[in-house]
């Protein structure tokens, strides 16, 4: 691996927001392609972060800082990747369902998915089924993630999935759900494609859906 790719990878792992922009531009000036920088530096760095996090050697704030660092590089690389027709890992649409204002878990999932290389659109909390449908049409995600903390709002996930079916959008996306009272059995029951018990495994699940892991 070239020295600069290795440097970028290290900067991502360390979450060094001051260095990442210059290094990414230097790498492009050196003639490296956006694709090479993404695969061999940014994703390599984030993969390392994922391993260290699972081993208990890195913690959420550090992981989020690394993800943020990667995003700063992505802001530069995205137009170039689009020009050369390279696809991102995938697009994830996230929202906390109607009636529920608890969104700390969903926010974590968003940041973890960004760290895994996804383009993430977060449409917030208290999101009605119609708003999910609008956003799917507009953003065209590969994966839709829904969260709920309350046992009373959990079932709105089911309503939302039904609304996607009625709108003819269900086959276009994978639906993943999560939140403290949510279980795999509930996911199966309401016809979601997957369930994750925490933000890191949600990002892993998204990667599996996108065929990237």
């Amino acid at each position, binding site marked *: 691996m070239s020295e600069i790719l290795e440097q970028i990878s290290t900067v991502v792992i360390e979450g060094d927001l001051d260095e990442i922009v210059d290094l990414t531009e230097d790498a492009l000036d050196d003639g490296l392609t956006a694709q090479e920088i993404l695969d061999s530096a940014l994703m390599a760095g984030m993969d390392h972060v994922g391993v260290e*996090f699972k081993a*208990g050697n890195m*913690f*959420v*704030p550090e992981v989020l800082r690394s993800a943020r660092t990667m995003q700063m590089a992505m802001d530069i690389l995205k137009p170039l990747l689009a020009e050369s027709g390279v696809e991102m890992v995938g697009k994830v649409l996230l929202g906390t369902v109607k*009636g529920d*204002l*608890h969104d*700390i*878990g969903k926010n*974590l999932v968003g940041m973890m998915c960004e760290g895994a290389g996804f383009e993430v659109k977060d449409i917030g909390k*208290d999101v009605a089924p119609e708003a999910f449908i609008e956003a799917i049409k507009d953003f065209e995600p590969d994966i839709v993630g829904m969260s709920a903390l309350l*046992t*009373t709002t959990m*079932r709105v996930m089911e309503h939302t999935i039904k609304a996607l079916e009625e709108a003819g959008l269900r086959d276009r996306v994978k639906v993943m759900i999560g939140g*403290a*009272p949510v279980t795999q059995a509930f996911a199966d029951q309401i016809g979601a494609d997957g369930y994750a018990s*925490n*933000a*890191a495994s949600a990002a892993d699940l998204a990667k599996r859906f996108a065929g990237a892991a």
Partner: protein
Amino acid sequence: MRTNYRVHSGVNFRMFSQDQLEELLLGVLHVLEYTGLEVHHEESRDILKKAGAWVDGKRVRLPSYMVKRSLEMAPRSFTLFARDGDRKHDIHIGPGRAHFGPGPTCPNFIDVETLERRPYVKSDVPLVAKVVDALPNIDFCESLGTVGDVHYDLGALYEFAGMFPNTSKPIVAWSYDQFDSAGIHKIAVTEAGGQEAFEKRPNYVHYCEPLSPLVSTFEALDKLVFAARNRIPLVFTPCPIAGGTAPVTAAGIITQAAAESWMGLTVAQAIQPGLPFIMGGVLSVMDMNSMILAYGAPELPLMMAGLTELAHYAGLPLWQTGGCTDSKTFDEQAIIEGSLSVYFSALTGGDLTHDVGYTESAMTGSVFQLAAMDEAIGYARRITRGIEVNEDTLAVDVIHHVGPNGHYLREPHTRRYYKTEFWYPNLCDRRNFEEWDMMGRTTMKDRAIARVQDILAAHQPSPLKPETEKVIREVLEEAEDRVKQDAWQNRPRAE
């Protein structure tokens, strides 16, 4: 006769100095005055505005005089009464008194027969209430779960309907919305003998939970307004997570939680001056690896101790937390985390300490953890009761009488005190090895299970009045009818 003699009754515990408490208090007032909260309840915003608050859209800021006045109006001491008049089950809230009880809304439960984790169901409620009724160191009742096998909007009603007949200890009633609250109140008022009788001798507390950071949700305030109008003692307790939905520092999360609770206090006192208000806040850390809200972390009892001291400094009782664990099973971790936190709660004199019996970070309720914690609370209470020093306990005469080489077993002094000076365990084993061996080498877990099963087989809670039984049936029938109506299902639930 002793003059100018100072007594320390019990163990002295103090974390903050006067200066630190004043700084915390001023921090809370500053947040309420300059940052304010989002208040998602139009009626409450109107009430607050009339009382002097600055309302800008949903954002409400409170001038500090308003908050101070509300703190002054709320009582520091009051009594929660046993529904059956059993004075041993009354709870006297006031300085230096810590009380304990379970928590609400775990999705799962440890089955009392199979000992396996499974979803919480309606038939678990009476079992929990009976165990609460029988355990000597558990003072109030919550159900340890969300009833999952009834209509999804009726879990809280079935929960109260299951608890109320099975314990006469005061209940802290959680509910989804004001419809539940009205049903619960109807049941409790019937037993009390009418609204006026209830106001004189309240037999339950109403529980509301706002959202962190800094949001008073529609349901929390809608329920609060109902409780205040009906003069039901109130818990208003946010659940901020340090590093996630609150500042990472203990002082920061205490400040934010107090601001969140005192917005509720100010609405409640504007509606019903003098309403018993129990300040809340379940404070702990977000584990930065597992991302859970840690119920077994040492920061929980530490932050709760800080919040308790602030509450008491401000003149309010506190909804304390303890006896809970992140462990998934009845093991050493569960006992370490649970015991240390109840001991700390007891030291702080946290007024109503809840979540006793929570396992798996509040995901699973366990009556076995509850029974083990009953033992830990007894132990802690013996320590916090302290040492009484007077002429009789000093025993100088008795020492003189027995003299060198004597013994104290036959002394009247020994007979007089051995039951009150010593604490007697229910679950801890003090037999010698041979006896323990002969009795089947039981573990703490075996004995906790046996204790729960004995209670469930033999304990008879005092019965409800027949008219209350009837009202419970009516309230449940009405509720079942209500949830079948589309108009009710589609009612506006939030702003």
